[in-house]
Structure formats: C-alpha cells, structure tokens
C-alpha cells in the first residue's frame, strides 16, 4: 500500500472539495435543480404586473418612482438573504441524516471550513437565480437598472449575505441540538425582511417602526443596493451604508461561529451529535 505523499491540501482545497460534492449531489437531482433556478425569474413577471397595478406611488420618488425596479432589487436581495439563512441549517440537517457529520468532525477539517464549503454551491446557485431574475427583469420586461451600478452592488450583496449567514449559522447551531424545527431562522428572516424595505419602502411605517428598521442590517443592504442600481446617492451615503453593514457583520459573524462551537460542545457532551 502506498503511503500518501506529504503534499497536502489546505483550507481552499477542502472548500473546493465540498463545493464539488454539493454540485454533484445537486446535479443528481436535476429536475429539482432546474425548477429552483427558474422560480425566481418567474416572480419577475409577478412583480411586473403588481407594478402595473400600483403605478408610480409618491413613496418611491427617491427611486425613480418605478415599483418594478424597486421590487426586483428587493427580490434579488431577498433571495440572497434566504440562502444565507437556510444554507447552513440544511447542510447540518443533511449531514446528520446521512451520518456523515460525525465522519467529517472526526477528521482533520476545521468546523469553519466545513461550514464555509457548504455555502459555496447554494450561494452560486442563488447567484444564477438572481442573474436570471435580472435578465428577465432588464432584458425582457425592461427594468431600468444601472449597468455600472452592478459593480457597486457586489460589496453590498456580499456584506448583506454575511449578515444573513450569521443568522443562518446561529440557526444551524440550534438545529445541531434540536434536529428539526429551528425556532430562529424563519421567524427572524420574516421580521428582518419586513423591516428591510425589500418589498415596500419603510417610509410607509409609523415613525417608531422606522427607527426599529435602522437596527436591522438588511435595511442598509436593501437601501445601498437600490442606491447602487436605481438611485443617485452621494459617495458618502453609499459608503456609510457599506460601513454599517460591515460593522454588523464584524459583530454577528464571530458571535454566530462561537455559538455554533458552543452547540457542538454541548452535542458532544450530551451525546446527540449523531441523532437526527
């Protein structure tokens, strides 16, 4: 038997291996994959006809007054938010039910690498979904999104996703212990979206609720993304929103990873790591 060479793969090699594994598994469910990819694009048509119904309301005057442009951006960010929240819980639940979680945790891979690797394919597939949404929105229906704004949108999306990942990792920590029925992600996801202005402007809320919205990182993500794609912000306005998003992520991500590590310790103490 040949002993393995000393050459080893590091963090990126493992992340890539997890991504390849997930892609192969996704492709093996090809019908489900195809349906999920086109689902978001179909919602562009839904948004288009709703926009015809509501016209050009005064509340959207800061965004060229067009509800369709406004809501397409909200849908795109919602898709990214959704994958941030759900990808980690799905990964933990699948590994537990497949019995592979223990094998992976008994090996030399670090927990953070396993979690990060499991996010690559869901994030990539969501990006394809969003690209199709924008393709339909801009190319077919005629949304007036700024092409150059797409470059500015990249850091906004990444920072917003980082914040939702924190929520997702915290949810996965709970799933590790409770197995099903995570009480954190969906309720918080719904509240977060409600208070983000993804589907309608938060200026419609009463004053006190608008103040609450400012405690929600998604609000800054949605605002900055609209500034980039359909608004006309000053650099200071845009950068302030980015800085706030980065600040939230700097606090919430390490806290979520810490929570997951704590949940793992408890699972090892209680002997529930393998149960599902």
């Amino acid at each position: 038997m040949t002993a393995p060479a000393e050459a080893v793969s590091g963090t990126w090699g493992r992340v890539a291996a997890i991504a390849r594994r997930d892609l192969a598994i996704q492709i093996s469910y090809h019908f489900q994959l195809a349906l999920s990819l086109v689902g978001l694009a179909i919602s562009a048509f839904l948004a288009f006809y709703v926009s015809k119904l509501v016209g050009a309301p005064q509340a959207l005057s800061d965004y060229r007054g067009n509800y369709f442009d406004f809501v397409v951006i909200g849908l795109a960010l919602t898709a990214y938010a959704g994958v941030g929240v759900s990808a980690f819980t799905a990964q933990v639940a699948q590994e537990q039910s497949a019995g592979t979680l223990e094998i992976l945790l008994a090996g030399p891979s670090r927990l953070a690498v396993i979690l990060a690797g499991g996010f690559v394919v869901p994030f990539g597939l969501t990006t394809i979904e969003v690209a199709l949404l924008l393709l339909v929105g801009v190319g077919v229906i005629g949304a007036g999104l700024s092409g150059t704004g797409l470059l500015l949108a990249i850091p906004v999306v990444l920072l917003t996703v980082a914040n939702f990942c924190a929520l997702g990792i915290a949810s996965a920590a709970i799933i590790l212990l409770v197995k099903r029925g995570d009480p954190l992600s969906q309720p918080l996801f719904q509240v977060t979206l409600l208070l983000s202005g993804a589907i309608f402007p938060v200026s419609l809320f009463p004053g006190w609720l608008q103040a609450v919205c400012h405690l929600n990182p998604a609000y800054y993500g949605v605002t900055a993304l609209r500034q980039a794609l359909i608004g006309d912000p000053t650099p200071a306005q845009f950068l302030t929103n980015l800085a706030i998003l980065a600040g939230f992520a700097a606090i919430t991500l390490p806290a979520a990873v810490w929570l997951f590590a704590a949940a793992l310790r408890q699972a090892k103490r209680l002997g529930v790591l393998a149960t599902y």
Partner: protein
Amino acid sequence: MLRVEHVSKTYDPPGRLLGLLVRTAQKSPVQALTDIDFEVDSGEIVGVVGPNGAGKSTLIRICTGLLTPSHGQVTLASSRSVGLVLAEERALYWRLTGRDNLRFFARMDGLAPAVARKRTDEMLEMFDLADRDRRVFGYSSGMRVRLSLARALLPDPDLLILDEPTRSLDPVASEELLTILRRLADDGKAIMLATHRLDEVEAICDRVLVIINGQQQAWLPTSELGGTASSLRSMLKAEDAP
C-alpha cells in the same frame, strides 16, 4: 498508539434551559461507561466485545473525539488522523459514486488532488470496487462496508477504529473483511474493533476488552479468555436468540 485512561461517561440530561431545545434518550443520568482503561498498540487488533448496549459505541465515539468523557482521558500518539468506520451504512454520500465519495473524503483528509486521485484508485482496487463504480445507493451492504473501510484508510492512518463493521455482512463477506483487518494489523496498523461477536474476536484479535453494562469486565490477551469466553458466549447467544 491509543491510550484510554480511566474513562467514564455519564449521559446527563440537559439542564432546564437547554432541555427546552434538546431531547435526549434519557430523563435521568445514565452511567454508560465506568473506569475503562486499556491501550491499543501498533500491529495489534484489540477487540472491544460486549452485548448490545454495553457501551461499545460510546467508547468508540469518545476515542474519536465525537463524545466528551465525563472523567478520564484519551491520548493518541500519532500525528496522522484516525480512520473511523461507524456501524451505520449511512456514513457515505449515497447520491455520489464510490469513487467520488473517496475523492471527496481524501481531500477532506488533507491530501493534495493528485495524491487523492491516486489513493482513491488504490483503495477501489484494494477493496474490489474499481470495476463497479456506481452511485452508492446502488451498492450492496457489503460493498458499502468495504467502501467505508476504504474511506477510513485513505489518509493511511496509524489507528483504525471500527464499530461492528460486519453487522450487515454475510459470513463470506465477514470473513473477507476480517482477513483484510488482520493483514492491516500485520502491516503495523493499530486496530480497535468493537463487536458483539466473540468468534470474530477469537479469530483475529490479539487482546480483548470485555465490557458489560458499561463496566470493564476483562482486559487480557485473547488466548487467556478461557472461562470468561464461555460465560460471555452464553450471554451473547442469549441476546442473539429470537
């Protein structure tokens, strides 16, 4: 290679706050293991034998760091990772082929891409799976066990830990697997084999740890099992009876 010193494990129910989230099998503390003390050296197979529920799987999970002991410590004198084969056939990705499973786990074990490919081919060849590379859900139970063992051997670990690997195998496949294990030990690997089949222990193990109800009943060379073997055999036979 592996030193287990005075290890005990009590499964405590979760505290009041954690209990709102977590459901465990027990509502009061359960003493699963008490003062287990043994070691596994290079080139030997240590059989961990006992009836179902004796604490074998608990001990294996403690030895691999998947479960925290309440007392005592486990020391592994090797920088290489431990090869682990769990009792479940599930510990593979059934939607992937055997080859893809091995390549994935090889990369997770830290092997570089070219080494992972080479090692995967070697393992498929060694376990007679090279010509039957299909998705794992199409494998027989025996093929899955062989694939699990191949996966465990990918990083060429110094220590191999197996939890009832022959449980779902027919007699011929069991014998083949035991032959492979003996050969691996003769090549210098340390092997810890948990089983409730005394014939397997007597066939290939050098030393045996007998656990009953979480208590260490015996720790001795297999050749010295003597009277312990017959009483243990009756106990295990009674358990296997329909």
